[in-house]
């Protein structure tokens, strides 16, 4: 049994729902051992949840996919819910998203089903307490690593969760209580995703390159934290398979059936299909909020503009932490 079990329970899981996972920023420095990155599928929403509860970058919070989760607070907690609107309520009253909320002892917090977006992030002031495995608590079920038990288990009904009492993050006085309106993503709008061309893009036929960037692709129901398959015109590449090589977050690989797969946080570390390039980290996050059958579009971007946007996003969370 891991150490947190000896700590007091601050939250009890009344109903686990399909998939709720503890996620810090991810597992790094071990990918050469075949260990995947993990971490939040939507790092943008994850970061804001921490920020609104005064937690520094990297603090573990809960990624709730699709909803169905029902929790009860054992003591009063300061929380923030960001990301997808999964119809969250406290004692049947809707919880305002993207802002700090008091969750009183004895009250139940329930996630229903997607209204817009797919993954919500629940951060608690102080951060959830769990023992890191290979340097991280990021929960990867396939690798049986991380999470509250250290073994990659998703939340289960009856679990008791602990919150750090005196984390470095409890600086609520300096933290914003709500995200500014212009920081809120609108998941009801079709996703337009930034692709940095690379790898084998020159080996695709001209027709396929035209199709890649002029198609409303449809998100397939074969979509999870490893990757998201897109359905649309068949993309043809002169190369069928490659000698396996390292693959980065957001890489778009095209297997012989011509239907692209965007690789996300829990992808395998190496792979051998030709690639169009890679989504920007923020676009990979946006895609992770898409439900099956939603339309997405790819646009080719240069790295300078994308880097500027990425650094602007990260600057919000680092001004107070140094």
């Amino acid at each position, binding site marked *: 049994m891991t150490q947190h079990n000896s700590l007091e329970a601050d939250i009890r899981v009344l109903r686990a729902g399909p998939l709720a996972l503890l996620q810090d920023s991810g597992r790094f420095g071990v990918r*050469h*051992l075949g260990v995947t990155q993990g971490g939040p599928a939507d790092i943008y929403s994850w970061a804001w949840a921490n920020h609104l509860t005064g937690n520094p970058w990297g603090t573990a919070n809960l990624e709730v996919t699709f909803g169905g989760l029902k929790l009860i607070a054992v003591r009063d907690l300061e929380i923030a819910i960001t990301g997808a609107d999964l119809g969250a309520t406290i004692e049947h009253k809707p919880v305002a998203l993207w802002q700090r909320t008091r969750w009183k002892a004895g009250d139940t917090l329930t996630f229903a089903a997607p209204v817009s977006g797919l993954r919500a992030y629940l951060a608690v002031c102080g951060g959830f307490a769990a023992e890191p495995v*290979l340097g991280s608590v990021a929960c990867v079920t396939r*690798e049986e*690593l991380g999470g509250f038990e250290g073994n990659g288990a998703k939340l289960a009904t009856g679990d008791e969760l602990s919150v750090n009492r005196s984390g470095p993050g409890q600086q609520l006085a300096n933290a914003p209580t709500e995200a500014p309106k212009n920081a809120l993503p609108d998941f009801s709008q079709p996703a337009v995703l930034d692709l*940095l061309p690379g790898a084998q893009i020159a080996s695709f036929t001209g027709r396929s390159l035209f199709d890649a960037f002029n198609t409303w692709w449809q998100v397939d129901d074969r979509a999870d934290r490893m990757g998201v398959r897109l359905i649309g015109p068949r993309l043809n590449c002169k190369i069928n398979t490659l000698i396996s090589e*390292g693959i980065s977050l957001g890489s778009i690989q095209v297997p012989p059936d011509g239907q692209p797969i965007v690789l996300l946080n829990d992808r395998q570390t190496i792979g051998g299909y030709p690639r169009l390039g*890679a989504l920007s980290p923020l676009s990979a996050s946006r895609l992770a909020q898409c439900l099956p059958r939603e339309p997405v579009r790819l646009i080719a971007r240069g*790295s300078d503009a994308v*880097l500027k946007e990425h650094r602007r996003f990260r600057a919000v969370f680092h001004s107070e932490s140094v």
Partner: protein
Amino acid sequence: MSWKPVLESAGLDAWIVRMFASIDERNVSWLSALARRCEEAFGDALVDLVPSYTTLLVVFDPLNVSPSQARAIICETLAGLEPEETAHEGEVHELPTWYDISVGPELQRVAEGAGMAVSEVVEAHSQRTYKVFALGFAPGFAFMGLVDPRLECARLDTPRKRVPAGSVALAGLQTAAYPTETPGGWNLLGRTSARLFDREREGFSLLRVGDRVRFVPVSREVFEREGGNTTPLEPIT
């Protein structure tokens, strides 16, 4: 090196350095040398390095260095690069392996394909010292080669839903041992009692890219004494 390295963008935070056109055991010493020099050159800006058969994926922190700065750093490390000397080559690991039909049901298939007796397959597989080309698929899963070409054997048409931990396997000209129970489509020849991935161990993975590996045939008794799991494999369903 008769091949000129090529850098390919792998997104906002990574470059692929394509060093070679084909798989060769000698690639590893070049890739290891490049990885070592990248560690020094990037310092804190380095996030991960993923070596594979012919490439090195360099993952950096884009808050620290831009993609074009990272490219310049990598180009500098490539200039005057020398392969690591054989003396610095990876460790040699001996993996005690129980070759048996009950835990290696494809021994028969490989033997038929090679026109050899099962005992000859075991001999051919255990005689060579293999090089670890890449880790991937699952934590600690090492792709090794190259096996005796007579044993070359395609993957199973239908992968198994569960391949037990320790399974020693063959696909094409490569061999591997499964660190944990996962699905898999490789041909199973036997099982090793070695613990290939252990989160309590320093470094976690027994095998690293560049290491050398020998499978040492042992009896069922020795395999069991070493903690090996003798549960026979379920037929493919």
